[in-house]
């Protein structure tokens, strides 16, 4: 089973990389791109018997290692 973990900076946290990417897009003429937030994406291949089990494990991994709760939040998608 695969769990996809998307880690992003919390909305309240300034994202200097995303801001710079947005400025570069504006330079390229994409004036309609209002904002960019940069994050991290993980694919976890998990031996699990159910999607719930895979999700639980991915959430634990995200809490303990993949994200820093001070500055980041995460979202999980599970596919078989």
């Amino acid at each position: 089973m695969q769990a996809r973990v998307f880690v992003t900076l919390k909305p309240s946290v300034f994202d200097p990389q995303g801001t710079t990417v947005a400025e570069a897009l504006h330079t390229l003429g994409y004036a309609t791109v209002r904002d960019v937030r940069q994050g991290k994406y993980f694919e976890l291949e998990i031996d699990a018997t159910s999607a719930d089990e895979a999700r639980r494990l991915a959430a634990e991994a995200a809490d303990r290692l993949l994200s820093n709760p001070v500055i980041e939040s995460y979202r999980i998608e599970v596919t078989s």
Partner: protein
Amino acid sequence: MKFAVVVFPGSNCDHDTEYVARTVLGQDVELIWHKDSSLKGADAVILPGGFAHGDYLRTGAIARFSPIMQEVSKFAAAGGPVLGICNGFQVLLEAGLLPGAMLRNRSLKFRCEFLHVGVEQTDTPFTMACRPGQRLRIPIAHGDGNYYAEPEVVAQLERNRQVVFRYVSASGEVSDEANPNGSVNNIAGICNEARNVVGLMPHPERACELAVGSADGLAVFESILKWGRESFDGDTLTMATAPAVLNK
């Protein structure tokens, strides 16, 4: 006094720190590999600068799980002085021994230069030998030194006098121009509530001899020796007396 300098894979200021402790200060010092599970009787622990585990994932995120970190946590909980310099500060943040987190510098540039920090608190083991308000000219070298914490946490740090070092101009003003990375409130270094754990982004160990441009960083190391002298009871370091020494 005996210093322990923890070595992570990717630490690169470990030998500078060892040099200052051994050669400049004439103290006993041991480099301790991150997979060790003993601090070998050290009186003070330093987590040095560098790029532990290549800064993969986040700075300090993987190093915090090294076996030695359990010993560092126990040592800190018992009142032992722990200093995190640059990457060592980042490890202390990830380990939860200090509050907050580091973001990429607001300029996105790796900044490597001498600057000034003001010492605001002199009741920590790493600033005891400083004058309140003393300015230190020491270098920074980091890409992720943009200190961040929730506004309530920052307010609490200020209220508890836990902001130990602040980026200032050459004349001592706390200004945006003097802030090299975007850190909230120009924070360059903080301590925990018990005041025995300190982290700072600048590198005092790189400024301990005039031959390298500044010896201002010595104040930090001389503070540790002062702390040691005042905490020793005969030949035995009594951790229990450490808080009393700081509160004098």
